[in-house]
């Protein structure tokens, strides 16, 4: 079957998608976005966490067809997503006010400002590991905080943690340690670098409140 969705602000289309295929497989193998990691395939590890219509979900548990016409943000689009959120005129993302108190659907991310965040497929396919340049403008604040706090060891869990941590900071500007632990409770780090990960989230929150 054919599946269309918006990924990191860009329309994407995949053909010949198997009906039982996961959103994670489509992102990695068909759209060339390998940032979301494939580990447990059962929702235990959080390595594949993405935002689906603004809501953090395990991409391995979303059937590809369920993402039809939906808006997906992956770690590759996190910097632009965060930048757009912090731009006053660009407040169309699924921010804290997108919740629906009466029940019903989750907020949709409408890119009404015409920005096209996210990296291109060819950039993603030719991505190479290299040291981050200092003060790189391409990073979301939470990504910079992970680097500065030394929260990245093998790096496999990092993309999922970044997406989850960014969503926490979006809805809670001054999270308590309990808030952070709960928000990240669905993300496993097998290097067990949890303390520095907590440090990184605290650092990102502190920097955001200083800047505000």
């Amino acid at each position: 079957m054919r599946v269309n969705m918006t990924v990191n602000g860009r329309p994407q289309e995949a053909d010949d998608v198997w009906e039982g295929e996961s959103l994670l497989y489509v992102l990695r193998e068909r759209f060339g976005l390998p940032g979301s990691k494939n580990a447990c395939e059962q929702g235990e590890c959080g390595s594949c966490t993405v935002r689906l219509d603004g809501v953090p979900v395990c991409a391995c548990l979303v059937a590809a067809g369920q993402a039809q016409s939906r808006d997906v943000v992956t770690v590759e689009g996190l910097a632009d997503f965060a930048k757009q959120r912090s731009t006053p005129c660009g407040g169309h993302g699924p921010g804290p006010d997108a919740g629906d108190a009466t029940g019903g659907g989750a907020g949709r991310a409408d890119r009404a400002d015409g920005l096209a965040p996210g990296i291109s497929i060819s950039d993603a396919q030719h991505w190479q590991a290299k040291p981050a340049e200092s003060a790189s403008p391409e990073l979301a604040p939470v990504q910079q905080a992970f680097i500065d706090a030394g929260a990245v060891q093998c790096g496999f869990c990092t993309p999922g943690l970044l997406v989850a941590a960014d969503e926490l900071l979006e809805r809670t500007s001054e999270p308590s340690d309990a808030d952070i632990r709960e928000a990240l409770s669905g993300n496993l780090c097998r290097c067990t670098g949890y303390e520095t990960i907590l440090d990184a989230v605290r650092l990102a929150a502190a920097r955001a409140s200083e800047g505000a």
Partner: protein
Amino acid sequence: MDFLRPASWEEALAAKAEHPSAVPIAGGTDVMVEINFDHRRPDYLLDLTRIGDLYEWEAGAEQVRLGAAVPYTQIMEHLRGELPGLALAAHTVGSPQIRNRGSVGGNLGAASPAGDCHPALLAAGAEVEAQSVRGTRLIPVDDFFTGVKRNALAPDELIRAVRIVKAAGPQQFSKVGTRNAMVIAVCAFGLALHPTERTVKTGIGSAAPTPVRAKVAEDFLTAALDEGGFWDSGKVITPSIARQFAELASGACNPIDDVRGTAAYRRHAVAVMARRTLGWAWESYRATADSTKGGAPRCA
């Protein structure tokens, strides 16, 4: 495999009638695991995520009609007052990512003996609203679980909603596992005080082939509270009553040894959880009874 995308509930019922083997999928937190691990290859996947009605709830005078696909996160955030036991149980499900997708309808559809919602639903009192092109039937949750991962749904039926009795008194939920998140219950216990009827209802999870109520324990406690005048006096429940209740609750279990725990441990843990949840719920009841009587605040 075919991927069916009904745009409305009527279309979904028609699709299920035409393809009774179709597997409904909403949050995917059970179904996708089975597909990813090649444990299941359904001929049809019936995607319910386009049907907005399933994501809404209505709070009536006596019941909450909870759409089958309302995610746990929404229950925790918006229905804690009406459904405190279910909100507590929802908070123990998986992780934030899982709670953003998983729902009570999915929990009931899977009908795992370890499903976290089931003890809360049994204790509160609930009916499953099953619909098909033939019509609607309300299945009491007590009759819903028919075996390990088996339920009372007919092949052409889908769960439209769950009708849960609104709490008129304190409710509690307790679950044993190795950590706070991402845990399948070793065993679980739900308890609801019903002060209007002066009854207590319970639910036991993961300690029998299906979720069950501890009916003998409920009857004993209801009678003991009544005879002792506890509902009116609001006095502390005597330890001997609590102990007897716990032992009877343990007796309602029919557990097995498995990777998560032994049968003996489960029996023991259910007794402990029964005693503790009763204590917590009764303390809340006493606090509200005190304040409605205008009594002085109690010291800690």
